[in-house]
């Protein structure tokens, strides 16, 4: 079997299986609800300039700490008189940017390094896995806090800090998958045909390990969103006055006795977003893992 034959054969098997998986996912009400939630958050982020009642930084001096359902302010205003609804809407952009950006970074590095470790095995695998153990010896948030402190507080640095903190997870999964895939006939066929390593890794191996990686990616996004909010809450993420859910919670903490509703909506936005991604992730895992299919 040539490399091209191997590719067509695996593509022929893959496509209907994926279509069935999507159909099965859509038939699960919790996963469907999660998918709707994700689409809503993405749409809110994309349409923020159109649907936001006010610019996120516009200050209304006469109406500070207004309660929800105040005239003109559906969710009330913060301590500086900024509309909370507008800031929650604009905050979705920051959260999604950090969540998707850091997961893409972590997955990109982790998957590439993991595939190399699993494909070459031997000393390459040993060195890379020891490095992975080293990164894993620091809890995720401690590592992210340290990196954010070194890099300085900003949106891009929060993405970098969380992405670097996240890559060992992807490295572990992709290495494990690669170790199994390496023994498959189509990989052996590609090696015998003299296909370059990058072709074997990215064209033959990667598509066949997408299922577990997809689940991991869907579950990593909410973790990154919570991590980003935590960094902002600690003053190490997105900096004020930018609209960000974590920073809003940090600001709200000083006003819990005066305006308890101030902290409710940014937190609710984080919860609904992470819950939606987790529902999709759980659904994908159930659909793609044969042991979980019932």
């Amino acid at each position: 079997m040539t490399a091209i034959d191997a590719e067509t054969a695996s593509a022929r098997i893959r496509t209907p299986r994926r279509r069935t998986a999507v159909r099965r996912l859509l038939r699960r009400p919790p996963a469907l609800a999660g998918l709707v939630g994700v689409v809503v958050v993405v749409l809110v982020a994309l349409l923020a300039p159109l649907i936001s009642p006010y610019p996120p930084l516009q200050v209304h001096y006469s109406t500070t700490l207004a309660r929800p359902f105040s005239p003109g302010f559906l969710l009330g205003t913060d301590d500086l008189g900024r509309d909370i609804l507008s800031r929650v809407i604009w905050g979705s952009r920051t959260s999604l940017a950090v969540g998707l950006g850091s997961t893409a970074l972590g997955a990109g590095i982790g998957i590439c390094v993991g595939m190399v470790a699993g494909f070459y095995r031997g000393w390459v695998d040993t060195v890379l896995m020891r490095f992975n153990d080293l990164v894993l010896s620091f809890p995720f948030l401690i590592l992210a806090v340290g990196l954010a402190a070194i890099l300085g507080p900003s949106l891009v640095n929060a993405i970098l800090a969380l992405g670097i903190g996240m890559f060992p997870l992807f490295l572990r999964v992709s290495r494990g998958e690669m170790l199994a895939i390496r023994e498959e006939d189509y990989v052996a066929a590609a090696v015998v045909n003299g296909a370059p390593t990058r072709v074997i890794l990215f064209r033959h191996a990667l598509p066949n390990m997408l299922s577990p990686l997809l689940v991991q990616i869907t579950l990593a996004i909410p973790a990154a969103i919570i991590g980003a909010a935590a960094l902002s809450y600690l003053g190490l993420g997105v900096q004020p006055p930018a609209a960000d859910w974590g920073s809003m919670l940090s600001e709200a903490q000083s006003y819990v006795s005066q305006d308890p509703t101030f902290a409710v909506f940014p937190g609710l936005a984080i919860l609904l977003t992470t819950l939606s991604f987790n529902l999709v992730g759980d659904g994908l895992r159930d659909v793609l893992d044969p042991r979980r299919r019932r």
Partner: protein
Amino acid sequence: MKWYVVNRVGTSVLTLFLSSVVVFLGIRALPGGPAQALSSETASPQVLIAINKEYGLNKPIPVQYWVWISKVVRGNLGTSFTNGLSVSAELANRIPVTFELAVLSLIIAVLIGFPAGLLAAVRQNTVSDYAVTTVSLLGVSVPTFWLGLLLITVLAVHLSWLPASGFVSLVQDPLGNLEHMIMPAFVVGVGIAAVIMRQLRSAMLESLGTDYVRTARAKGLAEARIICIHALRNSLLTVVTVVGLQLGALISGLVITEEIFVIPGIGQLTLESVFNRDYPTLEGVVLLIAAGYIVVNFVVDLLYSVLNPRIRVTGGPS
């Protein structure tokens, strides 16, 4: 097995050594060193040079590392730049606080997660199962600091049932200590309880579908006996492992929670020393966390291979 243990000890020691190098270099990469943090913004370069000289920060990095690590192996973590106290003594004061919070959080996590996970598995596809599954998913998705803020708002500010923040020593006032610790412990415990629920449910469902459970049912054994003796015992391994591996989440949760509830533990010390550029304290505390994490992971790995005879991990002849 012996070779596996030897191999695992060796890699753990190597990882710990490399962690110490990373901690040391990483902390020195923080922008604005301790001299800037200790002096005023308008301090002259001479003042900064004098401060750096006093704390040995003008020496080459490898020399600084050697001085530090040779003290660390003798149990001396140095002196804090900000308050002049011994880092070891500071850690000794803070560890019991964080340890108590961690233990309370785990107790709460097990008390919530265990019965709920069991109920969901035994009553699969019923209202109880859906309720537990939904609550556990909410527990995984909720940000710790938001839950903390909500509880402070409701239980402390509005109902005045519990203090909003602070800490009272367990030895001096056990009841006051519990009043201060119960809310933060609940906040940290909820996330871990959610993980326990999910894992126990899934492990129990797998066990309940096995042949030995079917045989037990065919023999006419009581359902309670089948669940507790046969299925639960075989599901515990997964749960124990998962609880062990939650240490990272536990530490991360503790850092944020101690900050919200103003609890003088290791988490709060970590953040204080990051913001103050207090190198010795930060080095001590991060090294302690890394060492704890490595040791617990090692013990969990070992337990896993001891408890599960099918998993005799490779690493040499067993």
